[in-house]
């Protein structure tokens, strides 16, 4: 990722934008933080938030006119936060904060003429920057009645900050002239001096500079105390720049009120009326009022995504981590797992007001990791092996319909449907042949795992094979059932006409095998259907025809959430994948119906009753919601057997692929053994290879206590260990584990 790209992505994420109150306040007092602390009864800390930003806080907090109220997003849901009253409560009740420690003295001096709120605040701010300040005025006067001692208290604080107050001096033009001679700069509080002094043109709105060099002045007629204070701060900034000879105008856009892009979704927030101010708040009422603060933030994407939540931050931080991860030359790439865990489902950019697409960022990062050779070898290996298997001789197939020598359509059920519900795929194919005639069949993978893992060249290779098979059938229209296949093939094979099985069924009507009056089900849209409204509508039409009473989860339709399989999350971080599936499962009380084989598997594995639409249209023997979710080995076997069965029964062919030696090893597993294999992604074929090797070499370990055997073998890059005992002609497997580290100079 280039730095410019990083900046663009960072700019899109608005979570770090200021809340409305902070942006509207000309001093940018952090009212959100103040309310958060006050709501937690941390009165002194809340006051410290005000005191660190405000000049003369004891005065300003008591007279602040609260421009934040007009901007407060609580405004429409009960009423704006009574920030002014909260400020007054804090000023009266909190432990006084120490005045800020000014920067070290810079040896320069500034005169302030006029002791109004503007002049005093300017003196405060100028003194903070290390100038010696002298205020000339008849008498300090902030234009409001204050409790006794408050103004004097702040004047004492100013004295400690290095401000000299010359009372009883009426500012005149002559005084301006002499001070301009003596000082490095002069500031005039235009509302606290006579008009005769104001003979220097209109002060510039950005700098408050005048056409006299070194003379700065407030723009007359400002009535708001907080804007008066802001003018003082603006002048202090200008005087600092003027005295240092640096640009007077650069990077001043965030001085004074500015626009903020922060978005806060208020759709589900309940109105709460403001706590009546009356004669002012006591602590319980102030705390209650502060608790009404919405603590505005965006987090729209994070709220809906288990993955974004898991890493505890938000996209602006994540994209920086992705960038840093790429930039590292030596050392640990901390963000590899984060990058590889995104489900690439597109929910974040759908809900983001600025279209921040975490999926795009992560997929591009994965591609870069592949290109640079920094992708962890283990990250996607299992899924890619599964893809290779689905595309291999034992599973892949392309045929015209039995007895036909051309195809009008070709059915492409996809590798996950054939792995999880081979019976359903077989019955669907029969239905399509019955009703449409010349429908060919292609069994293989669409290439999604290659694409999701960032291996674009592998994806292209796989696609080329698929294309060749399709062209071999005369380039017929493709009927695809899996939303991911449909999405990927439509992008990658624009020359092919790809229709969804669901739209075909919408046109043909329900198959004869369809169940009747199914009852109430929650519809789960797969993430691949997010941008395919027609597909989602076809599915709902079929469900309606099936007599299903449909309910929708909160995140549904184009806002649907991924089941945890997308982007290969479940391979990279199985626990997080399961958490995503669980979140989906818990979103509704009803049983789910979905139209993606992996959604069905992921949700069903959490224990939630879930069915694929095929379970209703092309039911097998099992009760639809209770069909078991097959393990990794069984999924492979399902694909192999489906191909063999179809070849034998439809095309009267032997499968033509001879069984390999290891496949002849007869294996049974204990429950513990099977569970270990499943969670460690060890296939039955891996175990068979170990046992064949042990058989042939005669080498194995034996346990002195249990008498069990133990053997290892490394077929390619992973070494598998199998703990077993001979059982008749075969073996009973008790346990299995694996590692990637290679043992040099020992057993193979």
């Amino acid at each position: 990722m280039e730095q410019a790209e990083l900046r663009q992505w960072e700019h899109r994420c608005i979570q770090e934008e200021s809340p409305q109150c902070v942006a509207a306040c000309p001093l940018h007092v952090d009212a959100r933080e103040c309310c958060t602390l006050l709501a937690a009864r941390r009165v002194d800390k809340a006051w410290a938030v005000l005191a660190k930003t405000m000049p003369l806080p004891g005065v300003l907090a008591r007279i602040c006119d609260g421009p934040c109220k007009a901007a407060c997003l609580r405004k429409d849901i009960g009423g704006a936060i009574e920030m002014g009253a909260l400020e007054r409560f804090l000023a009266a009740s909190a432990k006084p904060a120490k005045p800020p420690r000014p920067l070290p003295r810079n040896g320069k001096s500034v005169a302030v003429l006029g002791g109004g709120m503007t002049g005093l605040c300017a003196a405060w701010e100028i003194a903070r920057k290390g100038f010696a300040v002298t205020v000339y005025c008849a008498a300090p006067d902030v234009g409001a009645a204050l409790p006794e001692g408050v103004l004097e208290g702040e004047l004492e604080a100013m004295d400690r900050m290095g401000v000299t107050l010359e009372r009883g001096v009426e500012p005149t033009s002559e005084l301006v002239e002499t001070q301009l001679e003596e000082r490095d700069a002069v500031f005039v509080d235009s509302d606290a001096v006579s008009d005769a002094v104001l003979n220097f043109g209109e002060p510039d709105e950005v700098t408050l500079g005048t056409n006299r060099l070194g003379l700065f002045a407030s723009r007359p007629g400002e009535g708001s105390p907080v804007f008066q204070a802001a003018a003082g701060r603006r002048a202090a900034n200008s005087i600092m720049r003027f005295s240092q000879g640096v640009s007077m105008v650069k990077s001043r856009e965030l001085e004074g009120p500015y626009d903020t892009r922060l978005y806060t979704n208020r759709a589900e927030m309940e109105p709460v009326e403001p706590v009546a101010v009356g004669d002012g708040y006591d602590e319980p009422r102030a705390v209650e009022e502060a608790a009404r603060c919405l603590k505005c933030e965006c987090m729209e994407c994070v709220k809906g995504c288990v993955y974004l939540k898991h890493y505890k931050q938000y996209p602006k931080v994540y994209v920086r981590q992705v960038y840093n991860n790429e930039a590292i030359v030596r050392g640990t790439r901390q963000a590899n797992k984060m990058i590889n865990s995104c489900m690439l489902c597109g929910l974040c950019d759908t809900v983001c007001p600025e279209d921040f697409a975490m999926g795009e960022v992560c997929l591009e990062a994965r591609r870069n990791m592949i290109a640079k050779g920094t992708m962890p070898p283990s990250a996607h290996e299992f899924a890619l092996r599964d893809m290779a298997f689905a595309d291999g001789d034992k599973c892949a197939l392309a045929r015209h319909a039995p007895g036909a020598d051309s195809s009008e359509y070709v059915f492409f059920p996809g590798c996950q449907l054939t792995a999880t519900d081979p019976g359903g795929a077989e019955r669907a194919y029969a239905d399509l042949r019955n009703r449409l005639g010349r429908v060919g069949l292609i069994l293989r993978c669409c290439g999604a795992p290659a694409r999701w893992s960032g291996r674009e060249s592998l994806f292209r290779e796989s696609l080329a094979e698929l294309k060749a098979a399709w062209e071999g059938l005369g380039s017929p229209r493709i009927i695809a059932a899996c939303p991911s296949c449909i999405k990927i093939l439509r992008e990658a094979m624009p020359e092919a006409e790809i229709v969804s099985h669901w739209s075909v069924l919408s046109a043909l009507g329900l198959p004869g095998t369809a169940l009747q009056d199914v009852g109430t089900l929650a519809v789960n849209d797969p993430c691949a259907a997010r941008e395919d409204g027609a597909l989602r509508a076809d599915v709902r039409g079929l469900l309606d025809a099936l007599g299903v009473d449909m309910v929708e989860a909160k995140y549904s339709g184009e806002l649907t959430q991924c089941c945890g399989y997308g982007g290969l999350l479940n391979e990279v971080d199985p626990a997080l994948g399961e958490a995503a599936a669980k979140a989906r499962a818990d979103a509704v009380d009803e049983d789910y119906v979905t139209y993606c084989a992996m959604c069905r598997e992921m949700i069903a594995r959490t224990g939630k009753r879930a069915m694929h639409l095929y379970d209703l249209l092309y039911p097998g023997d099992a009760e639809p919601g209770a069909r078991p979710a097959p393990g990794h080995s069984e999924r492979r076997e399902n694909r192999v057997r489906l191909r063999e069965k179809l070849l034998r029964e439809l095309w009267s062919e032997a499968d033509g692929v001879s069984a390999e030696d290891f496949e002849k090893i007869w294996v049974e597993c204990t429950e513990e053994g099977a569970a270990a294999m499943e969670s460690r992604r060890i296939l039955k074929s891996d175990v068979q290879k170990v046992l064949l090797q042990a058989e042939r070499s005669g080498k194995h370990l034996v346990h002195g206590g249990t008498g069990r055997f133990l053997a290892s073998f490394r077929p390619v890059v992973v070494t598998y260990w199998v703990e077993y005992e001979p059982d008749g002609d075969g073996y009973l497997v008790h346990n299995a584990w694996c590692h990637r580290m290679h043992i040099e100079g020992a057993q193979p």
Partner: protein
Amino acid sequence: MASELRPLWEREELRAVAGETLRPGGFELTDRAAERIGAVPGWRILDVGAGLGATVSRLRSRYGVEAWGVEPSAAQLGLGCAVPGLVRARGDRLPFARERFDAVFCECVFSLFDDRPAGLAEFHRVLKPGGFLVLSDLCASNPVPEDGASCADRAEPLAETVRLVRGHGFAVYLLEDHSDRLRDLAARLAWIGEGVSCGCGRGLGYFLMIAKKQGA
């Protein structure tokens, strides 16, 4: 009728629609140039054809620079008397010593110079080595007779101005087309019936040029 005889830039109507600056783009191009050349407090800048002193005032109050202005029209100078640093002088005879200024601004008046080469020689003389010349003006697509009194009648083709500037010891550092601002001003003038008489929009353009004094 009397007002019709005075040049357009001295007329009240123009000030009403074009603001204090009396030129296309107003302060936008002034600010753009000032920020581009990096004007900071301590600099000395001369505005040639200062009019009421609006640019001088802008440069002083916003950029904290010591800005001076020269203006040959006594009438204009009288109106701008509150602005310090304004001097009555012609742009091609500047009453300043050599190498006095960090930058010379000449906004929408260069086309009115009787002797443009002499003007450029003067700008070059008063600029410090490496100093900036900020020139914004009308330009014509074809050479026009130099006998008109309106700025529009006397606009040079841009290529000619660039050649002239380069020929007087400057390197052109930035050249931007801002004809859209001229169209905007023409549209404003049309409201008071002056759009045609000032010639704005007759195939004329407007440009901003920043040139840097070459050599010592």
